[in-house]
């Protein structure tokens, strides 16, 4: 997988989430994602960015335009150094939340992307990777 373009944004406040969405929208447009796919990856980004802020205590997101031969895609890597997730399988269940949300953010985001990966270590932090291929 080639990385054609990369950029890292901070997630420290609610306004940063808006900025992440705008950045993802611009890049999704740039690689020519369809309107539905744009909306999917933006919404997934919004969910995970909010998790990074609310549960991870803030962190960063790396927004990459990637390609495999002629196929292009958008890869987002969210990183935080928060408390981590003790039971990932549980966190991925629909309707489970440790906060006050709907419990659909993580599982919903997984359904909205082509590839999804989550790694977490209790006390060290969480990394979530999303890819949406064109």
């Amino acid at each position, binding site marked *: 997988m080639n990385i054609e373009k990369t950029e890292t944004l901070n997630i420290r406040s*609610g306004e940063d989430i*808006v900025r992440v*969405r705008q950045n993802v*929208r611009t890049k999704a447009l740039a690689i020519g994602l369809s*309107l*539905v796919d*744009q*909306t*999917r990856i*933006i*919404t997934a980004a*919004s*969910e995970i960015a*909010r998790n990074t802020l609310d549960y991870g205590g803030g962190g960063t997101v790396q927004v990459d335009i990637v390609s495999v031969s002629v196929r292009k895609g958008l890869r987002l890597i969210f990183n935080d150094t928060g408390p981590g997730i003790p039971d990932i399988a549980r966190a991925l269940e*629909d309707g489970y939340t440790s906060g006050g*949300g*709907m419990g*659909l*953010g993580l*599982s*919903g*985001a997984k*359904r*909205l992307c082509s590839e999804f990966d989550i790694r977490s270590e209790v006390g060290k932090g969480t990394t979530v990777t999303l890819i949406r291929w064109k």
Partner: protein
Amino acid sequence: MARSKALLQGVLDKNADPLVARWVELQRKALKSGQLEASELESQSKKFVKALQSAVVSGDIESINTPAWAEVRDLLEEVTRARALQGFSPSETATFVFALKEPLFEYLRRECGKDADKLADEIMTASTLLDQIGLYTTEMYQKSREQIIQRQQEEMMELSTPVVQLWRGILALPLIGTLDSARTQIVMENLLQEIVKTEAEIAIIDITGVPTVDTLVAQHLLKTVEAARLMGADCLISGIRPQIAQTLVHLGVELNVVSKATMADALSLSFRRIGKVVIDRKTKKESGISESAAD
């Protein structure tokens, strides 16, 4: 090290007028034509040199944060604010101060003659002073811009949450932009208050202008709908675009609310619910329904 201010004071006293003239000329060269009225620039510059004169006489030239410099600071604040509002860049704003260096140093050079050591000292003193003043204008510029941004944010907050009455008993809430929690709170309060005020039975929440609907936005919407229901009003959601509908399904969010693709659909459903009919003028004559039937 305490610096002597006698020479600087002397130069300012003796050469105030030619100094201002040369300074104004340099400033006009640095600015784009038409950015500022010549007369305004001249009166600002004259006032500033006068304020500078008295501040140098009575105050400490090593710190402009002392009371003796109050007049100079006020004047700078006024000039900077005006320029920030007119859309000057920070460097264009700071030019006001930095353009003074050349003429001032020139007169200091004339005073010192061939005494290079003295000249170096004097220029150091004057330069340090002008740098301080220049930094102050930059700070003021930043402050003015922040004030402008804050005011605009407040204005947008108010603008973006109107509740409109479409008919007796029917309210519409066209949402635009990001639904962060501060705004959602205002939206909800406005809607609930209007429901009481207009005794509305139906409220249409239109999300055509909301770019992203994620689980948090959905949750806010559902809470608003629930609260309206407790007040005795039914909510309809309109303006759900195809891509948003698909995304919501993938997210697994169930909006247990009657929703319509467009505000027009939602309005026609609302009419049906409150027992109103919309009829074409033509068919109306044919079917013989009286004028007031649609009211």
